[in-house]
Structures are given as C-alpha cells and as structure tokens.
C-alpha cells in the first residue's frame, strides 16, 4: 500500500493502480481524451500530463504509483503544457462546432474553454480529409474532426471483439478506417464508439442533425430488449423547449438512447438494439378501449371486463413478462386467486438478430421474465377443458391457440389486428409513460422513469388491475 501525495493530499493507493485511477477515486480531476476506464492504456493524447516532483512531466494514465511520490495535477507548468497540447490537438481540427452533433457534450470543446481559450497559433492551412465517411449503415466518420485517440479501435478490439476498425497511414494524414472483410455493420455493439468518441468524429446516423443536445434531457430507464436489462438514458426534448410550429411528434419521441453507466449490469455499454428502442416504442399505439372491435369509453369497457370475470368459472390469465415488478405484484395480489396464471413470452428473437453472446446480449428477449416466473411459476400456458375466459396481457400471442369458446380480455399497448377480436380490449401504457422496476436474469432490480405523458384513453396496467379486481371480489 504505497502512500502517495496528490496536490499535497496523502492518499493510500493500491499497488496495481495508476496515478489517474487514484486521482479520480479521490476527486482530483485530470483531463484526458484517449484514456477510458474500460479500455487499455495507450497514452497517445498526452492530455493527462501531471508533474511529479523530481521527475518532471509525465502522463498520469500510464504512471504506476510509487511510494512517496508527489503529484501535482494543476501546477503552472502543467497548465502551460495542457495549453500547448490543446493547440496541437486542434491543429487540424476544423472547429465546426456550429454544425457538429457533439457540440454541447464534446470533451474537446469543454477542455478548450476550461484549459486553453486560445485561438489557433498556426498560420498554415488545415489538413483536409474525408468528411462523412460511411463506416456502416449506422455510423458516419468525419476524419477532419478525429483527434486519433484510438478509443474506437480499442473498443472494437477489446470489448466488442469485432476488430472492425484500424488506422491507416501516419502523421497528419493518418485516418481511422474499417478493416477489410470485417464490416462494422455486423458488430452489434458498434454504436458505443459514437458515445466514447471524445469529439464529433463518429456520428450516429439516426441522430444526425436531429437536435442540439442542450434541447434534450435524459431520463433513466431500462432497456427491455433482453433479459440483461441494461440501464439506459432515454433522451427526449426538454419541456421548456417544446416545439410549437414544427412536427409536434418531436416533443414526444425518443431522440436517442445512450447507456447509463452501471457496473452492476452493463458497465458503460449497451448493444445497438438498445439504441433502436424508438422503433419499438413508437409503433402505432392503441388509445381506445373496444368491445369486439367497437370503440367504447373506459368505464364501459371496465364494467364489461368485470362482468366477464364475475361470470367465468375457469378463468385463465396469460401474464406479460414486460410488466414491471409493481404491476406483476399487483396482479398476483389482486387477481392471482381469481385467475389460473401463466407467464407469456411477449417477444421472440427476430430474424437476423444476435441471440446471445458473452458480453451483454441474452437469449430471452423480454425484460422481466425473472420476476414473472417467481410470481407465477414456470408452467407453459395450458388451457384445460372448460376454460371459459382468457385474460391476455401484452402482445405476441396468437389467439388461434385459445380454446374456441373462451371469452377474451386483452390488454395491449399497440395497434394490432388481435385488438378487434377480443371481447374486451383495454389499452395500457408503455414503459416510457410510467414508473417501475424490472428484475434482470441475475436478479438485479433496475428502475425506469416516465419520459412522456400517457394519452387519456390509455390506462396504467397497475391501475387497470386494481380497477378490475375491486368489484370482482364483491360479486363472485
């Protein structure tokens, strides 16, 4: 346990730590571009220079701790060298922050204002390079903005293991390029390189010029794409920047999804499916209750559902494994004794999708199978003779598999042909409209928050379950 001093503060460090790690743990910020807590150390940006007494300047990210070393992270010499390094890094950077999607959350921009603030000292023309190089169907590369920190190449070599990116040539004409025969489009984690890029060189096509980031706010949520349950940030327009003349859907659509750093579940990464949550949640929504396809008001539909439940002799419920812990517990508590309950798999793996791997992706493409199985058992849905009422909660179930004479109560969020075939159809809210928790396959519970308001005809499943239960017990 060597004792080191950072800016005069005595710190007990572990033998295997670097000065960068120790400083971060104890709240001494050292700026960096190429260093990343989850990637190997290359030390090529030189931004994390610190002064060590008796040894001069060196980079903190690659400096093992030694007993009694005196480190200064903000001495005058360090400040002067940081300024020079920022001059060097921006030597060929186009400084087109006005049209760069990274502006507002760009490390280079932040450090420039924090540590330099100088104009470029160079009189030479900037080196021109490829703009908007097509890396994959998801990502564009702007080589002029790139500062060659190599985080993206290290990510594809060390984390996603697709080895899809490399560097060609040297000096100021050096470029990041895809490796032949290893297309980045086949890397299911490729979009993480957009997040870890410290500048705006790697651009997400989905988010390209969609919005400036300061008009958006993140809401913590959980990716429902598989049983891993990665914690994510869902970015949507701030209410104070609500658009009035442009397409109003921009106010209630997901602008982008980024990972929420969570060492217990996903670390700082998520897969590309998590980035595409908008496609899943922004399908056409059902917003009106129906009786056999005829639109009715919510109380009328609830009354009819209660009547069916009261009259049924052998009711069966297919419980959604997309329900939150709270909803599933409410169902068990309020309706668990009324219905014979089975867990239903709402979502199956799609063609072309990666089924399972060692990093994050799990084979079960539903978020809350663990809690649903804990509450309702592992049995497959089974309709015995005499099943006269089936409550189907959630999508992805073929009504052809139901007993022919059973009445159907259907709870679904999306506009689907089955909605009209149910005796009672009740629209329920989706994850971006409610609070809740999911339990992932390891039993870790993560919370999600609402991003948007639900429509008036739509009900939260928890409220709906309580409304269905109350009189059903009174009039058996």
């Amino acid at each position, binding site marked *: 346990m060597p004792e080191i001093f950072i800016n005069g503060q005595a710190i007990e460090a572990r033998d295997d730590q670097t000065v960068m790690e120790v400083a971060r743990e104890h709240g001494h910020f050292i700026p960096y571009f190429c260093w990343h807590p989850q990637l190997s150390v290359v030390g090529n940006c030189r931004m994390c220079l610190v002064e060590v007494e008796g040894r001069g300047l060196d980079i903190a990210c690659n400096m093992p701790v030694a007993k009694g070393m005196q480190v200064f992270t903000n001495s005058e010499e360090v400040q002067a060298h940081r300024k020079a390094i920022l001059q060097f890094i921006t030597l060929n950077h186009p400084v087109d922050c006005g049209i760069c999607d990274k502006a507002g959350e760009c490390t280079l921009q932040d450090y420039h204002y924090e540590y330099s603030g100088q104009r470029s000292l160079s009189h030479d023309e900037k080196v021109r390079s490829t703009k908007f190089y097509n890396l994959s169907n998801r990502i564009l590369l702007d080589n002029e903005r790139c500062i060659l920190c190599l985080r993206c190449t290290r990510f594809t070599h060390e984390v996603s293991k697709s080895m899809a990116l490399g560097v060609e040539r040297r000096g100021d004409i050096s470029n990041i390029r895809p490796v032949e025969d290893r297309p980045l489009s086949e890397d299911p984690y490729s979009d993480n390189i957009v997040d870890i890029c410290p500048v705006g060189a790697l651009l997400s096509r989905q988010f390209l010029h969609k919005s*400036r980031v300061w008009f958006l706010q993140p809401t913590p949520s959980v990716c429902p794409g598989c049983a891993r349950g990665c914690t994510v940030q869902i970015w949507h327009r701030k209410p104070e920047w609500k658009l009035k003349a442009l397409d109003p859907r921009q106010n209630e659509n997901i602008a982008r999804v980024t990972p929420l750093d969570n060492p217990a579940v996903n670390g700082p990464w998520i897969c590309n499916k998590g980035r595409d949550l908008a496609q899943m949640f922004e399908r056409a929504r059902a917003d009106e209750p129906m009786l056999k396809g005829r639109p009715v008001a919510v109380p009328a539909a609830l009354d009819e559902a209660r009547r069916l439940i009261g009259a049924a002799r052998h009711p069966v419920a297919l419980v959604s494994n997309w329900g939150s812990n709270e909803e599933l517990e409410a169902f068990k508590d309020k309706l668990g004794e009324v219905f014979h309950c089975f867990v239903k798999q709402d979502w199956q793996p799609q063609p072309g999708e990666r089924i399972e791997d060692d990093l994050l992706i799990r084979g079960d493409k539903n978020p809350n199978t663990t809690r649903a199985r804990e509450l309702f058992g592992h049995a497959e849905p089974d309709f015995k003779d005499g099943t006269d009422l089936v409550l189907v909660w959630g999508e992805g179930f073929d009504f052809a598999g139901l007993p022919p004479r059973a009445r159907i109560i259907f709870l679904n969020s999306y506009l689907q042909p089955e909605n009209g075939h149910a005796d009672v159809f009740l629209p329920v809210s989706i994850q971006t409209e409610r609070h809740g928790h999911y339990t992932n396959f390891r039993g870790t519970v993560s919370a999600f928050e609402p991003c948007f308001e639900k429509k008036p005809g739509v009900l939260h499943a928890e409220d709906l379950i309580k409304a269905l239960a109350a009189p059903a017990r009174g009039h058996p």
Partner: protein
Amino acid sequence: MTTPRKPHVRRQYWNEPTMGWWERSYLLEVARGLAITGGVFLRNMGKWMTGRKGALTAYYPEEIRADYAAGNRGKHILTQRPDGRPQCVACNMCATVCPAQVIEIDAAFDPDDPAHPKYPSRFEIDYSRCVFCGFCVEACPEDAIRMVKETPDLPGFDRDRMWLGKEELLNWQPHADVAKPYPVRTVAEPGRSPDA
C-alpha cells in the same frame, strides 16, 4: 443616546388644482372642450370628403409607415449564398439565445455539399411572441439572420397564423450587400439587366 426620528412625510409631486369661476361653472368648460374636439373632427371630415388626407393616420394594414429609422429592428430575413441557398447552417444559436423562444429550426443533412453539410429544412419564427431584441442577429456566427427596418405586418385574429417560414424569410433581395456577393436575380426588373 438616540436622536428621535422625525415622522416620514411623503413628498407631494403634484399641484393642488386651482380653478377660477369659469372652470368651476363646469358646463361652460365642457362646452369649450366639445367645441375643440368637434372642430378637429369637422375639419378632418371636411378634408376627407374633399379627397384630401386629414389627420396623420396611417390606414394600417393597407398603409405602412415609410419613416422607420435605418436601424429599426423589424422583420427578420435570412441571407443567401451566391448560389441562392440559405447562408444558415442550422446551428440553432439564435433559437438558443432567443429570450422568447420563438425560433424553431429543423436541420437536414446535405452530403453533396461537404462545406455546408447542415442546412435548415424548416425555419420558423413566431411573431406573436417575438420581442424584437435582436439577440438572434448578434448570436448568428454566419451572418445568416438579420433584421430589416420594416415590421413583419402580420395583423390577424389568430396567433397561430403569425409564423413566418423559411420561404418568406428568404424573400429578401437586396440590390447589393456590403457583406458578400448576392445571388443573381432570376426575375429581371425593368431597366435592370439580370446580371447587374
């Protein structure tokens, strides 16, 4: 030892009205006032009936004042590149700085022009809320938005119709611009050659 405080007396900023017997008789003064307004009214009406213009009234919105100061901050315009496309790069600086939050811009990507890959596909200003502060003009890094001295002139009964879009804002066609070469006019004016 504390000195006793004097009670605060509020200063009086007005004079007490003083009226002579003429004013106090009331009806006579009312008649005099009616004579003044009636005289002005009849004089203006006489001018109007004989085809001359009476009072200094601009018949808005059919008439617009001609005497705006050169530096008046009126309607916004979007400047153009020499090829006629908007100078604006949709950076949203104006929308961000706007204290009334009246500017809304939709950006689009143009891969064919690597020097200007981002351009506004829609650019909307709400004149029912604009406070004409000119911050947008100051914030613009591209000299793409300016304010001309004429007012936007959007009288109406509906706030939702007081928006101006990109097409209207790009209508500005100066004969010459001190800042940059301006697009060649497509419609030739009488007495002006198209490439003048």
